């Protein structure tokens, strides 16, 4: 494959992973209005639960059963988390801050809980697609191609849901004014649960992506969360389109920069660009002045 092809492939692959993580963060922010630092550990849980369901040493279910099952369980965990960590503080002026600390605390609990339950030895789950596929002169792992292909489809569906349905609209409204939501007849609790559950499921899917090509460890969610944060800062947190675009742009930026500048300087360069972008457009590259999911 040509140099350009490799760079593009790398950009798409990294971009997909970033986007899958970042979109859940942005979703929780745009709907509930808090920053969810559990997002990384939800990803970890997704991977470990998938392992629990699929690994022959554990339950040994087939992947097509294990995957939705893992997503479902993590969504349920996400629901429980918001009921415990966020819901009680909604309506307080400092909910953003309190949620930061409760989700950080919960993330520590869950991370160490994972360590307790599954132990520290690295694990892995089977890839979504086991083979390699010939692309030009080289073979690319089918798992990675699957990630590149699945991500836009999933994110597209999420986008449609948020923007083309009344429930999606309600999700955007719910954090802005809870009283007003009740007064038009919305079930606020259910909407919160839906938002958080959906975000959790997206994180879990990212975890299953990761678990298919890397070792899993209880700590595996930390770096992707940091990266997702960067993506979200860059793309603006006001909607989900911004972070998605930003994810792919950062993927491309990194691939190009690694090739031409070197890996070592790439993170510093990325942050320098980030700061400059934010000086010019403080609310992110693609942010409109207001919040919305478009």
């Amino acid at each position, binding site marked *: *494959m040509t*140099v350009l092809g*490799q*760079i593009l*492939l*790398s950009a798409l*692959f*990294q971009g997909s*992973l970033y986007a899958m993580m970042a979109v859940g963060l942005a979703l929780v922010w745009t709907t509930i209005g808090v920053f969810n630092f559990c997002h990384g550990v939800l990803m970890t849980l997704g991977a470990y639960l998938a392992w629990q369901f699929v690994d022959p040493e554990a339950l040994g279910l087939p992947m097509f059963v294990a995957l939705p099952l893992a997503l479902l369980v993590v969504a349920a965990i996400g629901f429980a988390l918001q009921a415990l960590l966020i819901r009680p503080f909604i309506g307080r002026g400092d909910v953003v801050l309190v949620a930061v600390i409760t989700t950080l605390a919960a993330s520590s609990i869950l991370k*160490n809980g994972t*360590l307790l339950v599954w*132990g*520290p*030895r*690295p*694990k*892995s789950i089977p890839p979504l697609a086991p083979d*390699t596929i010939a692309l030009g*002169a*080289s*073979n*690319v*792992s089918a798992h990675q191609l699957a990630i590149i292909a699945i991500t836009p489809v999933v994110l597209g569906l999420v986008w449609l849901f948020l923007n083309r349905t009344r429930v999606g609209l309600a999700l955007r409204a719910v954090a802005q004014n809870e009283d007003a939501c009740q007064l038009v007849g919305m079930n606020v609790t259910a909407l919160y649960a839906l938002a958080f559950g959906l975000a959790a499921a997206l994180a879990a899917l990212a975890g299953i992506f*990761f678990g298919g*090509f*890397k*070792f899993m*460890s*209880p*700590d595996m969610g*930390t*770096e992707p969360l940091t990266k997702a944060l960067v993506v979200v800062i860059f793309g603006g947190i006001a909607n989900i389109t911004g972070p998605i675009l930003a994810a792919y742009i950062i993927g491309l930026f990194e*691939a190009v920069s*690694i*090739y031409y500048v*070197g*890996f*070592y300087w*790439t*993170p510093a360069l990325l942050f320098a660009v980030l700061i400059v972008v934010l000086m010019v457009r403080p609310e992110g590259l693609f942010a409109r002045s207001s919040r919305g999911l478009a």
Partner: protein
Amino acid sequence: EDTVKIGILAQVTGSSSADAQESIRGAQMAIDEANAAGGIAGHKFELVVGDVKNGDAGDVTSAAERLLGDDDVHFMLTGYASLTNFEIDMMAEAGMPYMLAATSTQTREIIAPNPDKYWCCWSLTPSFDAYGTDVTVLAENLAKAGKIKLKNHKVAIISSDNAYSKTISEAMKVKFKAAGWTITVDEMVPFGEVNDWRTILTKVRQDPPDVVINADYLPNNSATFLKQFQEQPTDSLVFLQYAPSVPEFIKLTGEGSTGVVYDLLGGVINSPKNPRAIDLSEKFKKLYGVDSGTYGIGLYEMVSIYFDALKKSGGDPTNHEAVAKAIGATDKVAAEGRIQFDPKTHLSVQGDDNVPLLFFQIWKGDRVLIQPDKFSTGEFQLPPWMSK
């Protein structure tokens, strides 16, 4: 009959919790054996754990202070706690016999200027110098023996910005250059997870070298690197630092790992020619159901060395000076080789007759010890992606 406490520092809740668990298990195994045999010099032993989390200075200090403050603790040890090993200073100030492993370059830097001040601290790991020099030697020797062909004397060296990898890769560069090699790719990745090596591999492929080295020790990164290398391999010997020694590495990389070469200093010499290692490995596996990597058996041996020293020094654990001195005088065949300590650096002595540098090649799921000949369990074979 009293109980002597042995303090272990480990990253129990940190990102290296797997190594921590293994270390604790190894030390515990040694202590349990001693207690079951009726104790040493009339003493029973108990392991106390200090969690250093991710090895942050504050956390290491707090954990170490806590154990040092316990009057019943008379020996401390770690696989690695901080990687900068600054805690050696605390041990010296407290006069606590202390053994450690891992980043011996840092240990040497602290101890060598004033070895007497650090009378209590000893490193099971020998000098890392051989890590930097011997890969070059291996490649040239393999070529001499006709097992591989060196077409261009080019090497691609990729490393990670951490104390361990960086020390090694810098030394490798010096050695390769001195031996007349050209370095085609010289990349340093920031320390941390790397999901995609394609862009760097693209650079490697543009000018296929004879040897490709990745000194990043994180098993995850290393495995990903190997997989992506395999997507479009070059005709090169692939050498990976440390990571392939982690038991799960083979499972994750599968078939793709066949042919990869790695080396270990202070690693377990799993060879019939070193029965103690085989014996300990089996015991460990039987007890805990998993294989031990470097640290499980490594810490078992540290505790054994302590026990020997305690006996030799007259059996008084509170006499730290005598015990530490006896540790320094150790001469013992352990799972890692024959352990003796260099009085100038307090590191174990390196060499084929002491602690050897072990070269392994993974072949169809097995780790074949190919060097030194003294212990080897098999021969180097041409990796499947290389041409004769």
